[in-house]
C-alpha cells in the first residue's frame, strides 16, 4: 500500500467519533494549559501525560498529539498577549506580537499566529507522510553497528540542545545514560546500581522524572519570576484582514519551508529556526523593514510558521528512528513508550494502522486547532489572568498524583519531587536539561546496540568502518557538530540582541 492509501485508511480510523473527540479535547486542554503563564509545551505534555492513562493507546496518543499542538499554540498566545515566551522559540513572536497587542491588534496577531501554525503544521505533516515511511524503510536495513552510529549521531543533538556549553551538555547526557542503567542488568540479569534497595530494582520511571524536571521545576521557577497576568483589555477581532493575510503570506511560506527543512536536522531546535525565519522575513520585507520590532504582522507569521514546521518535522526522526529532536517530543516519546509503542523503524511495519491513524489525526488536530481556537481567543485571553498563586498549587497536585498513577507507586512521586528540585537548580544555574532526557531515553538502546556491535566486531573494530552506513553516520556526526556550533552561536547572539541577557536555547 502507498503512503497515501495508508493515510486515507488512517483518516478512516481518526474520524471515528471517539478519536475525533480525543483530538478536540487534546487541542482544547493543550491550549488551556499552554496558555497558562510560564508553562511551555514540554511542561504541558508532562503534566497531562498521566491524565491520558485511562484511554486506549491510539486515543491516548491522538489526545497527546492534540495537547502538543494546542500547547504550542497556547505558548504563542502568552507570547503575544503577555510578552511571556513559554519557550525561547516564542521570543521572536513576542518581538512583534506584543507591540501589536499593545496597539489593540492582539486579535489579528493571534489569528495570523493560528493561520501560520495551521499552514506550517499541515505542510509539516505532509512532509511526514512522505519522508517518515521512506526513512523507516531504510532504517529497517540497519544492523546493530548502524543503529549504534545513528544513536551517536543523535547524541550530536547534545550540542544543539545544550545552549552552547558542550562540557555541561556532555555531563548531563552521560548522567542521563547513567541513571537509565539502574535496575536489572541486560546481560547477566543481576541488579545494577540499586545499592540493595528494592525500590530501585525496577529502575527510575521516565514519566516521574519528566514531571519533576518540567512541571514541578517550572512552578518553582515561576515563583522566582513572579508571573502575573498583564493581558490587555482589548484584543480586537481575531480574524485578520485581507491586507494582513497578503502581508503575512510570504513570511508564512518561507517560515514553513525553513522550519521544516532545518527541523529535519538533529540539533536544530525550534528556537534556531524561529529566529532564522524572523530574520529572513525581515530581510525579505524591504518596504516594511522599519516596522519589525514595532508591530509587523510578518514578524508574527514567520517565527510561528517556522516553530510549527520544525515541530512537525521533528515527528519524522521520532516515528522513523525513535529519536526525539526537541524536549516536547522527548515527553511525547515517553508517552508512546508508556503504551508499549517503541518508535523506530519497526513501528511503521508492526503498528502501521496506529501510526497512520495518529498522522491523520495530526491533520485533523491542525484543522480543529484553527476552528476551535480562533473563536475562543477571547476566552483564552481572559484565562491568562488567572493568578499564579491559584494555578501553581493545582499544577503541583496534578503533577504529583499524575506521577503516582503511572505505576501506583509512591516512590515515583518522591522521584518526581526530587527531580523537581534538581530541575529548578539546573534551570537556575543554566545547565541544559534536554541532553539528560535524551541520555535517559536512549541509554538502554545505546547499550544494547553497543553490546551487539561489539559481539559482531569480535575484536576486529576496523571491520566496522567498512560498513558504508556506519561510516556515513560517523562522518555526519562530525559535520552536524560543526553546523550546530555555528547555528547555536548565531542564535545565542540574536537572543542576546533581543532579550539583553543570555538564555538557554531549550526549555
Amino acid at each position: 500500500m502507498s503512503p497515501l492509501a495508508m493515510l486515507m485508511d488512517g483518516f478512516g480510523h481518526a474520524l471515528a467519533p471517539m478519536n475525533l473527540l480525543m483530538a478536540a479535547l487534546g487541542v482544547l486542554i493543550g491550549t488551556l494549559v499552554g496558555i497558562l503563564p510560564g508553562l511551555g509545551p514540554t511542561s504541558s505534555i508532562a503534566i497531562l501525560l498521566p491524565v491520558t492513562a485511562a484511554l486506549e493507546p491510539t486515543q491516548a496518543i491522538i489526545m497527546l498529539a492534540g495537547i502538543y499542538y494546542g500547547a504550542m499554540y497556547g505558548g504563542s498566545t502568552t507570547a503575544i498577549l503577555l510578552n511571556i515566551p513559554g519557550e525561547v522559540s516564542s521570543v521572536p513572536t513576542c518581538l512583534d506580537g506584543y507591540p501589536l497587542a499593545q496597539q489593540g491588534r492582539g486579535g489579528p496577531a493571534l489569528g495570523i499566529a493560528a493561520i501560520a501554525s495551521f499552514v506550517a503544521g499541515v505542510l509539516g505533516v505532509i512532509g511526514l507522510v512522505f519522508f517518515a515511511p521512506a526513512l523507516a524503510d531504510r532504517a529497517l536495513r540497519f544492523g546493530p553497528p548502524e543503529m549504534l552510529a545513528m544513536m551517536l549521531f543523535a547524541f550530536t543533538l547534545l550540542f544543539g540542545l545544550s545552549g552552547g556549553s558542550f562540557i555541561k551538555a556532555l555531563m548531563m547526557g552521560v548522567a542521563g545514560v547513567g541513571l537509565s542503567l539502574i535496575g536489572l542488568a541486560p546481560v547477566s540479569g543481576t541488579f545494577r546500581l540499586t545499592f540493595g534497595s528494592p525500590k530501585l530494582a525496577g529502575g527510575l520511571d521516565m514519566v516521574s522524572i519528566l514531571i519533576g524536571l518540567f512541571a514541578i521545576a517550572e512552578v518553582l521557577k515561576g515563583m522566582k519570576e513572579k508571573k502575573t497576568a498583564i493581558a490587555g483589555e482589548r484584543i480586537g477581532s481575531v480574524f485578520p484582514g485581507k491586507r494582513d493575510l497578503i502581508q503575512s503570506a510570504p513570511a508564512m511560506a518561507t517560515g514553513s519551508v525553513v522550519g521544516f527543512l532545518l527541523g529535519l536536522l538533529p540539533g536544530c531546535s525550534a528556537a534556531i529556526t524561529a529566529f532564522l525565519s524572523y530574520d529572513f522575513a525581515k530581510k525579505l520585507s524591504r518596504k516594511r523593514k522599519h516596522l519589525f520590532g514595532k508591530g509587523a504582522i510578518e514578524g508574527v507569521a514567520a517565527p510561528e510558521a517556522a516553530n510549527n514546521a520544525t515541530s512537525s518535522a521533528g515527528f519524522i526522526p521520532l516515528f522513523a528512528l525513535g529519536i526525539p529532536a526537541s524536549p516536547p517530543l522527548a515527553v511525547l516519546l515517553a508517552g508512546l513508550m508508556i503504551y508499549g509503542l517503541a518508535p523506530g523503524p519497526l513501528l511503521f511495519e508492526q503498528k502501521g494502522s496506529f501510526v497512520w491513524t495518529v498522522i491523520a489525526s495530526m491533520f485533523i488536530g491542525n484543522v480543529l486547532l484553527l476552528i476551535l481556537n480562533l473563536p475562543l481567543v477571547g476566552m483564552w485571553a481572559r484565562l491568562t489572568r488567572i493568578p499564579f498563586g491559584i494555578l501553581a498549587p493545582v499544577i503541583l497536585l496534578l503533577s504529583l498524583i499524575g506521577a503516582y498513577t503511572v505505576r501506583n507507586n509512591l516512590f515515583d512521586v518522591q522521584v518526581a519531587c526530587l527531580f523537581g528540585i534538581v530541575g529548578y537548580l539546573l534551570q537556575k544555574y543554566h545547565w541544559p536539561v534536554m541532553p539528560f532526557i535524551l541520555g535517559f531515553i536512549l541509554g538502554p538502546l545505546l547499550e544494547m546496540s553497543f553490546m551487539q556491535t561489539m559481539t559482531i566486531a569480535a575484536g576486529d573494530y576496523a571491520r566496522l568502518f567498512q560498513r558504508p552506513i556506519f561510516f556515513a553516520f560517523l562522518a555526519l556526526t562530525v559535520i552536524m557538530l560543526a553546523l550546530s556550533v555555528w547555528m547555536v552561536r548565531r542564535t545565542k547572539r540574536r537572543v542576546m540582541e533581543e532579550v539583553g541577557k543570555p538564555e538557554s536555547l531549550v526549555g
Partner: protein
Amino acid sequence: MRHGWSDRIAGLMAVAAGGVFIREAWKLYRYRTDLWIGDHVFPGLVGIGLLLSGAMILLSPADSRGEEAPGRTEGFRRRVAAVPAVLFGYTLVLPWAGYVISTLAAALLLFRTIGGYRWRTCIWMAAVAAVCMELLFVEWLHTPLPTGKILELKGVMAR
C-alpha cells in the same frame, strides 16, 4: 573572575558520581563475556565520562552568569524551599492519612505558601482542588489512590 560555585559543586558531584559508577563497573566485571561485552561496560564508560567532564568543569575558565542575582529576600527563599518540603511531606503523609486528607492539607499549604492568600480563602480553594482531583483521578481515570492506614485501621476497629 573564576566560574561560579554552582559549577564547582556540580563538577565535584560528577567526579564523585563517576567514582560510584566505576566501582559498580568493577563489581560487575566478574560477570563479563569480554572486556567490551558485559554489564560492566556502560557503568564504566559513564563513570569515566562523569569523571572527565566533572574535572573539565572544575578546571574550565570563569562563567558566573548562572549565579543568583542579589536582592532575593530571605522570605522568598523560605517560600521556595517550603514548596518541595510540602511536596515531600505529602508523599510521606499520603500512605497514612490517605488521599483525601493529605491532598486537602497539601493544597491548603501550597495555596498559602505560593499564593499568600488568607487561611479562610485557602481552605475553600483547597477543598475545590481536592474535589476536582478526586473527580479526575478517582471517578474518571479509576486510579486506586491510597485510602490511608489510619482510616483502614479505624474501619477494622469499628468492625
